[in-house]
């Protein structure tokens, strides 16, 4: 018990530090630069933590913005300051990789509402000196993108060569293309949708209820009360993690194999490998993620419906756009199935946009965008290489 308390204490301390004083550069926006939120409020002051890789060229034309997913962060291609693990998209980003840091200047901001240094519920509320908790305003994907645009203004980058991201990152890519078409030369929305489906909202609600059912959640005031709803958050993560995989991938990885035993124990221990794997996913997640952030970010995804901002006509979101798009989906992704990507392509075609679309054959499910998928890398490389020519970005 004492050991558990110590772990919880360390987790709380680590995350508190990262939320306000991250291991990343921070752009702070004072009272004079409030963030206008869809909820009708203004957030001020606020800050955006971000990582950059590579070098911005002389004509500032080679910047690539990477938008991270729900449980991702800005640590794309460096050791994670809390977990010590490699960056989350090292398969895609780096020297000589598809998003080549020898050629492009890669920027990845932590999204608004997250917990790795950009303002969110785990950050300190300047009015009270304690964490925001549920006093943090509810935010949307568009709010995240607005904050990113302010960061780019601060960095002196008028126009991005490309915006890329998967899942919630893909939603931000689409929002970027709709909100700031003149600032986006090429867009790479991967494994995403223009609106969150009822099924996906339902999964998110299960996750949120799991967090809120943890007695240590304390209506979001767990920091102040020195506890952590890590059990509820772990259950939320376990449930969500299943949706990121596929039946085939789970079967291939685990089948019905037992974990370190030959026979069932006739108990509720993690007899099966798949149980043990999920428990591990849950417990490692709570080390690096804030439970309230999980509530806010899942909510932002639920609210996402790009067409709704354009009289219900998705094509109007991309009217007269000059951005080139490359939409990618995965055959076994049932969270953001190919039909969702086809709807994006349909709207882009109707808007006369320059769009490519590929569905990649894999059994790895939604998470395939994070994994070693050579076909994905080929397509991204080809798309960016060909877009770099009219953009005038020199070869590495």
């Amino acid at each position, binding site marked *: 018990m004492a050991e558990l308390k110590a772990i919880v204490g360390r987790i709380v301390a680590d995350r508190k530090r990262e939320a306000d004083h991250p291991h990343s550069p921070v752009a702070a926006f004072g009272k004079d630069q409030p963030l206008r939120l869809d909820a009708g409020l203004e957030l001020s002051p606020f800050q955006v933590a971000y990582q950059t890789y590579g070098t911005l060229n002389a004509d500032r034309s080679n910047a690539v913005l990477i938008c991270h997913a729900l449980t991702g962060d800005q640590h794309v291609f460096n050791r994670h300051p809390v977990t010590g693990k490699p960056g989350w998209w090292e398969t895609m980003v780096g020297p000589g990789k598809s998003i080549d840091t020898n050629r492009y200047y890669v920027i990845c901001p932590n999204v608004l509402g997250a917990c790795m240094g950009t303002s969110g519920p785990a950050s300190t509320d300047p009015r009270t000196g304690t964490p925001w908790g549920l006093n943090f305003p509810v935010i949307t994907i568009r709010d995240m993108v607005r904050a990113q645009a302010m960061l780019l203004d601060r960095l002196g980058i008028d126009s991005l060569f490309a915006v890329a991201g998967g899942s919630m990152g893909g939603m931000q890519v689409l929002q970027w293309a709709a909100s700031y078409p003149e600032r986006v030369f090429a867009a790479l929305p991967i494994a995403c949708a223009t609106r969150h489906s009822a099924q996906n909202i339902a999964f998110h609600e299960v996750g949120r209820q799991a967090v809120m059912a943890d007695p240590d959640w304390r209506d979001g005031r767990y920091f102040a009360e020195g506890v952590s709803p890590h059990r509820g958050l772990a259950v939320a993560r376990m449930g969500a993690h299943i949706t990121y995989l596929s039946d085939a991938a789970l079967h291939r990885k685990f089948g019905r194999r037992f974990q370190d035993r030959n026979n069932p124990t006739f108990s509720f221990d993690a007899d099966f490998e798949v149980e043990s794997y999920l428990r591990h996913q849950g417990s490692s997640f709570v080390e690096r993620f804030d439970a309230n952030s999980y509530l806010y970010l899942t909510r932002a995804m639920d609210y996402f419906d790009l067409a709704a901002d354009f009289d219900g006509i998705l094509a109007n979101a991309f009217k007269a756009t000059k951005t080139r798009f490359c939409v990618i989906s995965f055959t076994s992704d049932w969270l953001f199935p190919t039909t969702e990507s086809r709807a994006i392509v349909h709207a882009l*075609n*109707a808007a006369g946009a320059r769009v490519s679309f*590929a569905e990649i054959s894999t059994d790895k499910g939604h998470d395939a965008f994070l994994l070693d998928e050579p*076909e994905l890398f*080929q*397509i991204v490389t*080809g*798309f960016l*290489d060909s877009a770099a020519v009219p953009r005038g970005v020199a070869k590495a």
Partner: protein
Amino acid sequence: MLSRTRRDLTMAEAARGPGNARVDHLLVADMIEPRSRVLDVGCGDGELLKLLESRGVDGRGIELSREGVNECVAKGLAVIQGDADADLADYPDDAFDYVVLSQTLQATRHPRVVLEHMLRIGRHAVVSFPNFGHWRIRLLLLFGGRMPQTNNLPDSWYDTPNIHFCTIKDFRDLCITVGVKMERALALNAWGRPLRLNAPWWFWNLFGEQAVFLLSRRGD
């Protein structure tokens, strides 16, 4: 269905013209005004689109095979994965100046519907197809008594993707039925060379190994 392997190339397709472009592609490209907007349905590895883009055309493609799409995207072409039968319906009216269907009509489930969509989406359509009325095919059926198999059309009847073969006359009849205007038509011999322009239809139908039609909407 829209993808074809290299062994499916007819002699005419394999013939190369200036710049190493396929002769049938050059003929299709010659029917298209420079700087127009073109949708190539069943664009394969993107060779025709590449040729068109070199002529200043704003080109888009649809291709069924994953390999084809990947190759096209890697070449910098705007190509989406899809199928003529299912996906043309999603395109708005008048989105393109030309819609091209190169060597694919005979592999569609509903050629008439595809043709109608092409001329809804585009002001013009360019269609090229192998002519099943060619004398060699007629002889094979007449004397062999079996579905013709040639070097150019090597598949057995039970595994061919080509489920809707037609002759030049058949296609002309379809154009009349649908009510489209035939702006230009060309028949190519087995070596990919155009037949005499003033030859009668029966002559083209007998000696043309493939045909290229430029169509437009009636009244446009």
